[in-house]
């Protein structure tokens, strides 16, 4: 078969593609980087990416898995305390009552004796930079492991949602008629579903892990809200004259959809991928917070642990339990949200500040 690019240029086709791609990337990056908030988003996401990549390396080299494993690790901080009679504890940091000493394993406490007590949760110290949780596990390690989970979930949900939505949107816009109404009524229906309660029940009836949840969110969103948005973009692309040109040149329906409509919908798809990640992470963290997912570790589970172990009202007094995890979900979500907004300006020139 004759290849027009080979006829027109001596260069290999992939090299032309690469050059065009890098040129448009550089141009778009210029517009993107003018938005300070967007760059902040990139920095935030890069920071969490760094955490996620660093975790296995640290576990393989410096960190002892028995101590630093995010789920199995255990390292209560040992503190020596002096036993005093019940009701005479004046300084709980250095003194311990008879009853408490018995709880901690000294069966026959004597006054004035020094006992070693394992403390968990422990505040930040040299060995554990962000302290330990109520089960004496390292918070920093959990945080890094959760970043991996967040990226995995976000990527699965975003890619599946956008792949489905781009196809559904393009097909609905191209064919119109009953295909369009069927797909759009279906999207309306999914939009109406109370998503969180439904996922709560699904999470309690079935075993839902990261992959299942990611795919579930991806499919629901890809057939629902995202499909509607991408369809409107596909409609705008459909009326462009290059489609007629392709038709005249003998292109099939499928050729026009995949080669002419979809590539022009893709920029907007990439934008919605970012918002998709935010939605998926928030849903995952909320469901984990309710303890309904079978995921080894995530930010939601960290908050759930602190909440169910009774540290909800400690606030700043036990800040390392609630703040790192809560801030991580927030900042991770904010990072992708800001990138999305900045990308919106690249895709949608009307939004740029004049």
């Amino acid at each position: 078969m004759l290849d027009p690019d080979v006829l027109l240029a001596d260069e290999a086709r992939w090299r032309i593609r690469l050059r065009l791609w890098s040129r448009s990337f550089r141009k778009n990056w210029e517009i993107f980087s003018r938005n300070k908030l967007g760059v902040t988003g990139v920095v935030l996401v890069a920071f969490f990416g760094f955490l996620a990549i660093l975790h296995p390396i640290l576990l393989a080299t410096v960190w002892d898995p028995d101590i630093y494993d995010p789920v199995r690790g255990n390292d209560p901080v040992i503190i020596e305390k002096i036993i005093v009679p019940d009701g005479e504890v004046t300084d709980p940091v250095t003194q311990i009552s008879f009853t408490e000493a018995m709880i901690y394993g000294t069966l026959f406490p004597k006054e004035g004796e020094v006992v070693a007590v394992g403390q968990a949760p422990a505040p930040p110290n040299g060995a554990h930079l962000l302290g330990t949780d109520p089960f004496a596990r390292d918070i920093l390690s959990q945080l890094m492991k959760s970043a991996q989970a967040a990226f995995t979930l976000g990527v699965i949900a975003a890619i599946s949602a956008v792949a489905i939505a781009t196809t559904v949107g393009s097909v609905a816009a191209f064919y119109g008629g009953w295909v369009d109404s069927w797909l759009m009524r279906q999207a309306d229906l999914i939009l109406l579903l109370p998503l969180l309660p439904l996922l709560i029940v699904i999470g309690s009836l079935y075993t839902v892990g990261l992959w299942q949840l990611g795919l579930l969110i991806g499919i629901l969103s890809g057939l629902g809200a995202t499909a509607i948005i991408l369809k409107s973009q596909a409609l705008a692309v459909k009326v462009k004259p290059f489609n007629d040109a392709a038709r005249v040149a003998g292109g099939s329906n499928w050729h026009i959809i995949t080669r002419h409509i979809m590539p022009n919908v893709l920029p907007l798809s990439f934008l919605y991928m970012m918002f998709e990640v935010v939605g998926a992470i928030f849903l995952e963290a909320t469901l984990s917070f309710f303890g309904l997912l079978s995921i080894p570790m995530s930010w939601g589970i960290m908050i759930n642990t602190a909440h169910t172990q009774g540290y909800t009202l400690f606030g700043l007094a036990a800040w390392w339990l609630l703040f790192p995890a809560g801030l991580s979900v927030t900042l991770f979500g904010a990072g992708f949200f800001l990138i999305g907004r900045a990308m919106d300006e690249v895709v949608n020139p009307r939004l740029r500040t004049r």
Partner: protein
Amino acid sequence: MARYLTIRLLQMFVLFLVFLTILFFLINAQPGDISAQFVGNPDIPPEAKQILRERLGLDRPLFAQYLFYIKNVLTLNLGVSFDHYPRTVADILLTALPRTLYLFLSATILSYIVGFQTGKMVAWRRGSLAEKGTMVTSIILYTVFYPWFAILMLWFFGSQLNWFPLGKFLTPAQWFDAPYTANMVFNTMLLTMFIALAGVGLVIWGTNRFIAEPVQRTRARRMLFALIAVSMLAFWLISPMSRFAADIAYHTVLPVTTLTLVFYAAITLLTRSSMLETLREDYIFTARAKGVPEKVIRDRHAARNAMLPVTTSFVLAIAFVIGGGIVTESIFSWPGLGLTLLNAVRVEDLPVAMGALAFIGLLALFAHLVADILYAFLDPRIRVQG
């Protein structure tokens, strides 16, 4: 408009049936179905198993079971709770429903009113310090992980400052000699809220219809609104329930504020961008050129048209508020539908969980219907052609 509403109502009913279908297959697609725990027990003799099967309707084909299920839900025959044994599911859910409704309504209405006003002002004064401050606060509130934010609010205002109670619905100590049940008082509160809302709607409709002159219309509206507020206050001051109502109201402040704040941020951001789009339209330029006062341009020309996308967003917001409501109810132990659902799920009380889900679905559909009616009022294309 009557035709439009009839069609919407029919659509809603079909959607509810589809939703129930999804629920039914969700239960039936489980590995080892719900009946296994009764039917699969080896200690039960085969005859007893057969009787159980027949009584549970498991000997019938799936489609017959499905029709039976739909019929049961539509007649509110939702079965008996496993966890609170003799109580029926319908009873539990009907007790919880008004509480969720209250949270949902007050958070939605408050955030829409305040959020729209803030968004309008902020867009009008673009580039000012107030705008930047509001934007930063809104973006923080909008992106914050909601359960975490709610925990922090509970900690700060409930525990640290000790201003508000730590969740729950009422203070039991004050209710020992109460001649009313909590739900009686609460439903009265909800009822007065509905009446006041209906009154406000009626005033807006009536003044639009009968008073043509704008200044007079505004004056009449203000007076009638004041009348509604005064009569509400008078009712609650005279009513013997007021002491108990005040206790419940005190417990609602923190959950409602928390849910409102997050939702308010979203509305503010949306109104601002919608308003900025509108301000760039030609008719705003024309109005300026004509010498129309700035305030009139802002309120009559720009804000009115900026309102449409904000109203449309209500459809998307319903899911948001319902999800946020569940989290709020769980953290502030507010005994509504969401907490009922979560507790039922934790103790595997399947009838209650499924019933709660059906109720929440119904609530969402109903909210959509209200949104449609509002939209029909706002958009003349629907109002006139219908």
